[in-house]
């Protein structure tokens, strides 16, 4: 799942798809936290808390990313990542 996310992040040109791929990566990491916490330290909850914390950050990050995408759409007219080269030139 992590590598599916990475693959998506690298290959997709649509910004929404990239965002979704990023979510996949983060979710994969969080599942890992939860699962490893269960196997390695069954009597402690740090992994679980970390996962909850991660979900909150992910939500915030998604909101920011969507806002950026909407603004990019307004100024460029589409959401293809290759067209976002205004600041380079």
């Amino acid at each position, binding site marked *: 799942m992590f590598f599916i996310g990475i693959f998506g*992040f690298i290959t997709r040109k649509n910004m929404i798809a990239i965002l979704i791929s990023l979510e996949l990566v983060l979710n994969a990491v969080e599942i890992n936290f939860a699962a490893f916490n269960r196997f390695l330290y069954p009597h402690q909850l740090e992994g679980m808390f970390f996962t909850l914390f991660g979900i909150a950050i992910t939500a915030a990050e998604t909101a920011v990313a969507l806002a950026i995408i909407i603004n990019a759409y307004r100024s460029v007219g589409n959401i293809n990542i290759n067209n976002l080269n205004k600041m380079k030139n």
Partner: protein
Amino acid sequence: MEYSLFILIAPFFLFLVLGLLGMKMQPKVAGIIGTAGMGLCAICAYAVAYQYFFQTGKAGEEWQQLIPVNFEWLRFTEYLHIDLGILLDPISVMMLAVITTVSLMVHIYSLGYMHGETGFQRYYALLSLFSFSMLGLVVATNIFQMYIFWELVGVSSYSLIGFYYTKPSAVSASKKAFIVTRFADLGFLIGILILSYYTKTFDFGTLTANHAELVTNSFAGGTFMGLSLATWALALIFMGGAGKSAMFPLHIWLPDAMEGPTPVSALIHAATMVVAGVFLVARLFPVYFFAAPDVLTLIAYVGTFTALFAAIIAITQTDIKRVLAFSTISQIAYMMVALGVSDYGGHDGLGYMASMFHLFTHAFFKALLFLGAGSVIHAVHSNEMSQMGNLRKYMPVTNITFAIACLAIAGIPPFSGFFSKDEILAAAFHNHPLIFWTLWAVAGLTAFYMWRLYYCIFWNGNKTYSEHHKPHESPWTMAVPLIILAVFSVFSGLIPFAGFISSDNMPFHTHIDWLVASLSIGIGVTGIAVATVLYLRKSNRPAEIAQSLGGLYRAALHKFYLDEIWMWFTQTVIFKYICMPIAWFDRHIIDGAMNGLAWTTQKSADSVKGLQSGQVQFYAWVFVAGSVLIAVLVLFL
């Protein structure tokens, strides 16, 4: 005698005032200020000379060295430091009097000669600068101070030769003078450095004390290429002197230096600056005599050759100032020879005394000759002999004074040149027959070319001048210095010089050696007689003689092609084989290394520039690939 410092300060102050404020003054005011300042300076110098020679100079029988002013200027090591100060001894006091006198005469003379020239104020400022540097040179307490002022006279000479800076020939002459003397000064500097490295002092008093003991001891044993280091050091110092004093083969700048205004030639290139080399050797005479007698022999032979060589060229020249220039070279060579053949102490040191004596008399009569020539040029507006003739009717004062100077330089008694030249010949007579007979012949040549010059200017046919270009006697500002200098030229030979100046500072007595004197008078009269026969009236005989001499005459007319040889030497040898490889090395190796470094950096930057695309996805890809690679490496290796 602290007031001797005023002699130095006054001209320097004048230089500053005239140099900075001159343009705001009327030319006439600037000229009068400069002349008056120089007059004060001269009075002061006479006072110093009187007080030194008649009151305070003697310690018992011996002339002592007085140092009224001396302060430390720059300290290098515990022993080595450069001082600035004033050293009074017989030769420096004598030089003070000569320089200020001639300088004052030139200042007065220039009021008339330079009247109406643009840059009149600049001219006076530079004259003051020159006087300051020359006076500083002769009173230097140590060899480094002398070197500093030595360069200063070089600079002021450069700017005065190039005074007419709109004239290309003057500009190139000034450059030539500066570069040639600068080249010689390189030797001087190296000589000073070697000398001071071993002796740990610059001071003249210390160097020459006790028969130059310090130099002889501190150089013990050091040799380089078969000659002792002391010999090398002193020979290099002599090279500086030879450059300034226009000894063969470094004489080429002096004839060209005649491009400057004529009074400048009289002051700098006849009476004062060009004898600086003689003065230098005289100042270090004990060092030369005891530490490097070989160099003295070298000086004697270089001088003899130069005297003969310059006299031969002087015969053929037609520009009156060039004749005088070559005559100057020849006479300075006389002084050098006298130093070269001199022994140390008492009557054996006759050559030393004779050299200073000739320097003294020569300064007056040569300055007079130049000023007279300037007066003629002022009247005729040309330097060429062919434009002159028959001027005695138009310019009586110049005629008489010029004739006196010619008699003096030809060595006819009782004029001053006779006494000094006779001493030089007497000094060479006993031990150096070859040098003696050469100098004797040169004395004849001297008489001949000077009288040739005189007849060509003032007699020689009935040349007529057109009505509105009629030559006229010069104004009194120019005539008065001529008369004063003529008086000096007549009587300065009667001074009993040996009582004042000698190699070991002990007065002695000289007597005229009548054998030598009659020989020298004989050749002088012969020279004059030949000149009279050939040039008193216009005739074809000189041209016929020149014709029969053929190649020799042409070679002498072209100054034995020395200029061309130097040109070839600098162009072909120095530029082509030394400068070009150095330039190539600089351009290709040094610059090449720098350029190569820049090129490599740029190319490597270009090649990695493409990776900085701004594509985050590409970065992520590389990052992931790298992490995987590292993970694989860590796991499986």
